[in-house]
């Protein structure tokens, strides 16, 4: 290893260079700071070269803040533009390994400080640049050649910033287009297992974590740094069903992390083997059998949903890391997923949203459905919801007729008193799930009773509901 004027170790990662011990500040809240990694042709890179545009370290005045930009070029047989952001994430780590150099933030918010001690040991940023590139090439061996340019001149930094922002914009557009089928690996997170021991949070490009805080890119970054940490890679395995989002690798991890409680998790399903729900999800979805539709309530909504219960009650029933058929916790960003509960009709199945949530996610609701989804201003109970959906001709209404027809057929075949039962069965082909703790709402106007079966196994040979004869 080459000799550097300062020590290099992960031990310095959290080192704080205080104002009192600082030689210069680069970028940060009071100035401009930029970092960018770009893939380049091998021929265009002069390995280990450090270029400084503007005043070098020895020309800087003690105690002052200077604008700062650093642009790294990487080359190698395996280097491609998609890797730029992966490499860029490590700039923060590797610079902090250098003793006496503090690096914070990212992209165009970079903030650095060089300590007096370290500044006294070198005249130029050159050894610093070489140390960082040495770390990159050691830790990420696919980088075969690397060079860096440091800019400390205000006008130059501004110019680089304008160009970089365009590059970031294009990069972000690409990341937003990343789909489940584009990657081989999903990520799991066990942070919630402390209170939801069987929760298996699976994060894919098309499905954000339930808390909304962790997306696929966060999983990737965290799993790279600490594969044994709370976020880890899940090999996707075989695609078993594209529509429901069922993968063999996800099923395997579901068995493992739930200690055998679940055998399957289908990422984009609401009814059949849905994702487990931790308890700290941003939004909970609930099935409304009377209209065969799904409503959603967000944590901030204080009122009641048309099924007569509010977020906290539903969260209490749904949480704990179980697969609760009829309820599903999600992160808000999942509404933006092109695979949003696609196994169960996607947006066509959504019948109710609190107005605050509907407004927040308005841009992702399909145009032809916008007016057909009710809010608390349109419907507060099942009857008014039914009337609203009928009036707007919501897609679920078409399934009601089918369900009724089927019911009639059944009645003809079996001359029992089913017709007297006010219970309306949902769409054809839909089987009422084996509810672990699904509240049964009385659909008629019989009053506010709620029966909750928990872990119940009931077998009934015949049930006759008939009108009470006085």
């Amino acid at each position: 290893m080459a000799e550097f004027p300062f020590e290099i170790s992960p031990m310095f990662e959290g080192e704080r260079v205080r104002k009192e011990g600082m030689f210069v500040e680069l970028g940060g809240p009071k100035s401009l700071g930029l970092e960018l990694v770009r893939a380049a042709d091998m021929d265009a890179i002069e390995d280990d070269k450090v270029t400084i545009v503007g005043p070098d370290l020895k020309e800087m005045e003690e105690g002052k803040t200077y604008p700062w930009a650093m642009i790294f070029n990487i080359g190698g047989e395996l280097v491609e533009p998609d890797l730029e952001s992966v490499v860029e994430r490590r700039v923060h780590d590797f610079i902090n390994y250098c003793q006496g150099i503090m690096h914070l933030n990212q992209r165009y918010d970079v903030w650095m400080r060089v300590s007096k001690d370290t500044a006294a040991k070198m005249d130029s940023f050159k050894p610093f640049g070489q140390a960082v590139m040495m770390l990159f090439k050691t830790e990420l061996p696919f980088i075969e050649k690397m060079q860096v340019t440091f800019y400390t001149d205000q006008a130059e930094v501004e110019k680089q910033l304008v160009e970089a922002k365009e590059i970031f914009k294009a990069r972000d557009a690409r990341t937003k287009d990343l789909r489940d089928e584009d990657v081989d690996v999903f990520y799991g997170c066990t942070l919630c297992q402390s209170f939801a021991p069987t929760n298996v949070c699976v994060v894919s490009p098309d499905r954000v974590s339930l808390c909304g805080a962790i997306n696929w890119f966060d999983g990737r970054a965290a799993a790279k740094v600490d594969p044994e940490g709370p976020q880890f890679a899940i090999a996707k395995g075989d695609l078993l069903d594209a529509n429901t989002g069922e993968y063999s690798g996800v099923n395997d991890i579901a068995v493992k992390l739930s200690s055998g409680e679940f055998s399957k998790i289908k990422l984009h399903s609401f009814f059949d083997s849905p994702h487990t729900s931790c308890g700290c999800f941003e939004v909970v979805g609930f099935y409304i059998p009377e209209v065969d539709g799904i409503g959603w309530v967000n944590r901030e909504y204080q009122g009641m949903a048309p099924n007569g219960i509010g977020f906290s009650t539903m969260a209490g029933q749904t949480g704990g890391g179980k697969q609760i058929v009829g309820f599903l916790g999600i992160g808000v960003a999942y509404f933006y997923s092109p695979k949003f509960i696609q196994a169960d009709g996607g947006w066509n199945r959504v019948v109710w949203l609190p107005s605050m949530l509907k407004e927040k996610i308005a841009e992702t609701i399909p145009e032809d459905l916008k007016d057909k989804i009710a809010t608390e201003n349109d419907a507060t109970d099942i009857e008014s919801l039914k009337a609203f959906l009928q009036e707007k001709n919501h897609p679920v209404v078409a399934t009601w007729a089918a369900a009724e027809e089927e019911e009639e057929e059944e009645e003809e075949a079996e001359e029992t008193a089913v017709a007297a039962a006010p219970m309306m069965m949902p769409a054809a082909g839909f089987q009422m799930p084996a509810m672990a703790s699904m509240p049964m709402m009385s659909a008629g106007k019989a009053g506010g009773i709620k029966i909750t079966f928990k872990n119940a196994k009931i077998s009934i040979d015949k049930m006759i509901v008939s009108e009470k004869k006085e």
Partner: protein
Amino acid sequence: MGYSVTKVIAITGKGGTGKTAVAALLIRSLSKKGKFLLAVDADADTNLPETLGCEDVKTIGDAKEYLQAEITKPRPDNPDMNKESVLKSKVYEIIEEMPGYDLLVMGRPEGSGCYCYVNNLLRGIMDKLIVNYDVVIIDAEAGLEHFSRKIIRDIDDLIVVTDASRRGFRTAERIHELVDELDSNVGRIHVIANKVTDANREKLVKLAEDLKLNMIGMIPLDPKIEEMDIKGIPLFEISDDSVAAVEIESIVKELGF
């Protein structure tokens, strides 16, 4: 800056017993001795920053809310944002650089969403931040919430400040029990009696003995402290010969400095 082992001291107790004053006096004494220290205000109800002569500080709570809002945007501008380095930047930005020591204020409780992820990032950042210092002194509320969340994982010395009231001692006893329930590693637990007078001195010693609490200091009721409080002079400016400051010196020795 030494990378020797950092000593973490948490100070807690019932409200009104003067625990913040004790924390401020300990910070004053240790930083005067050349110890590089981090003062942490982990009690939203008290006023350690004012006691140290520092106002309008930003808090970890602000930093957490900023990141939480940023990362739970339904359509983040940059899905590949390095959240750890952004949160670290916010935390390092709010650290108040005082002469000879740093001050960090935990601030408001979190909102209603899920903070598991943000807290997990924060834990990692705090672990790495703490090793910068010789000593960390935490002014903690009696419920020890930040420790139950493990934002700060290990405490070497937990000091419970009490006055002569029975309730003050009750709190000390309860904290003792609470520590057993915590997953955090707590080294030793001590008690400091505060506002001690000739009239209550004996009673305090006996109470501590009865409850099997290890008393490492008795700070006399100091008229100077009350006077400074009324005039709004930061306690940091107390003179070395005041009775409280003298007793703090002996406590600092007891703590192994």
